[in-house]
């Protein structure tokens, strides 16, 4: 079993890991297990605009060419870290040299179900939703997080009438702060999205000709379609009894090694060498949305549900597997994006929504900068890619706010 890497979850993190192992020269066995029967696909495009051919992260022919074994339509159902065995839904048990769990999260279950009521996480979800949106009519989106906001934007583009409901009075402010959040809300208003903010959905009832959505203030909205975008939740029941620490995802050290499994692997790392097909044995790692990596100083971290982070964690694990003496931790400036009403929102570094940022504006474009003693620590860009790039570089280099302002808007007096 030496050097045999098994990855559960063949999506953003899992595929990036497998590819990086190969491009780094690893020749050992690599298996990717996923419950989806679809070839691995990318998720961000599912909420952004018309659903076209899915972006494939890995195709079967490519997997074959790279020597990656794709086990699709198979679910991991149990883990025995002492025996280094994974139980699969087809009744088989497979051993591993190193295991990487990259199983993501699932859409938080909607409290209401029925025809026309959707959640959005998988390609199958997206196909069902987009088929409905193509019919036009009235859409109610419950939850104005990034995904809900993107769906609202997509649907209005396709000619639906859209109402966005959220218990917060300014949902984007929770992430980007009040002033920038208000700006994003005006995009919805200008695009014609009906906002029902500070309102809670109390009941959803199926009617003969649609769905009625009752809000806490008594208003009743009629809908043909409803999207329930109320966040995601971890789905790690199958790991119960494995010894892994499962508080809000899989708790890991700063290199993605799962806590609770290290008693098995520790002491054996260091045997591996690139090309020999040997890696840190018996170790269990976790990457992507399901993983909660500790900070570099060991302090407990938070789960991060972002595409860039999933990729970067995967690359760190690949490097750590191949050179266990030098375990890697993420170092890139965190970046999340969202596309709404034809504009891109980018959130970079550490943004404190409770602190008002410094704003730089250029017509419609806006860059908000957060700093610590004058050095840029976080930024939000609204429709200003070069501003975002300058901020991202500044955060990485610890540059001053004034330097960014000079770069992006030399004529603009900073406020």
């Amino acid at each position: 079993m030496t050097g045999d890497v098994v990855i559960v979850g063949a999506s953003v993190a899992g595929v990036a890991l497998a590819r990086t192992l190969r491009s780094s020269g690893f020749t050992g066995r690599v298996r990717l297990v996923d419950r989806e029967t679809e070839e691995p696909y990318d998720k961000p495009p599912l909420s952004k605009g018309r659903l076209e051919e899915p972006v494939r992260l890995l195709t079967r022919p490519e997997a074959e060419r790279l020597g990656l074994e794709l086990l699709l339509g198979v679910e991991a159902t149990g883990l025995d870290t002492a025996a280094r065995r994974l139980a699969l839904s087809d009744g088989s048990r497979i051993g591993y040299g190193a295991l990487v769990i990259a199983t993501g999260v699932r859409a938080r279950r909607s409290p209401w179900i029925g025809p026309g009521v959707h959640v959005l996480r998988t390609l199958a979800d997206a196909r069902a939703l987009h088929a409905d949106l193509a019919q036009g009519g009235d859409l109610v989106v419950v939850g104005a997080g990034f995904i809900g906001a993107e769906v609202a934007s997509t649907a209005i583009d396709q000619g639906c009438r859209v109402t966005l409901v959220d218990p917060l009075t300014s949902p984007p402010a929770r992430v980007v702060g009040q002033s920038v959040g208000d700006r994003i809300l005006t995009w919805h208003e200008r695009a014609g999205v009906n906002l029902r903010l500070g309102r809670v959905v109390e009941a959803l009832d199926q009617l003969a000709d649609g769905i009625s959505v009752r809000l806490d203030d008594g208003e009743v909205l009629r809908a043909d379609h409803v999207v329930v975008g109320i966040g995601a939740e971890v789905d790690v029941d199958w790991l119960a009894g494995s010894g892994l620490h499962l508080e809000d995802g899989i708790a890991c050290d700063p290199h993605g090694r799962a806590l609770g499994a290290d008693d098995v692997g520790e002491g054996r790392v260091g045997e591996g060498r690139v090309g020999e097909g040997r890696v840190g044995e018996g170790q269990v790692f976790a990457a992507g949305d399901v993983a909660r990596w500790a900070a570099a100083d060991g302090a407990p971290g938070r789960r991060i549900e972002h595409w860039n982070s999933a990729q970067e964690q995967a690359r760190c694990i690949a490097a750590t597997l191949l050179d266990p003496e030098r375990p890697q931790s993420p170092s890139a400036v965190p970046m999340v994006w969202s596309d709404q009403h034809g504009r891109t929102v980018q959130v970079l570094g550490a943004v404190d929504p409770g602190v008002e940022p410094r704003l730089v504006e250029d017509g419609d474009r806006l860059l908000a900068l957060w700093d610590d003693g004058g050095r840029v620590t976080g930024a939000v860009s609204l429709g200003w890619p070069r501003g975002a790039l300058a901020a991202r570089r500044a955060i990485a280099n610890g540059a001053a706010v004034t330097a960014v302002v000079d770069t992006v808007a030399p004529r603009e007096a900073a406020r």
Partner: protein
Amino acid sequence: MPILKADAAACQGYASCVIAADDYFDIDDDGLVVLLSTEVPEADRERVDRAARACPAAALRLEGA
């Protein structure tokens, strides 16, 4: 030699490619990717391929890689 291609229609200006390899990628004022070179010598292949895969919009391809 591997050839780098960009799909201008898909590019969203996230600039992840620029961060990963600023000797091959830049973005213009409208946030559209600009390829600084399209021929990628073998020595840069892995780095540029990684940069291309870091594009969240799947707008970049390194062909013949």
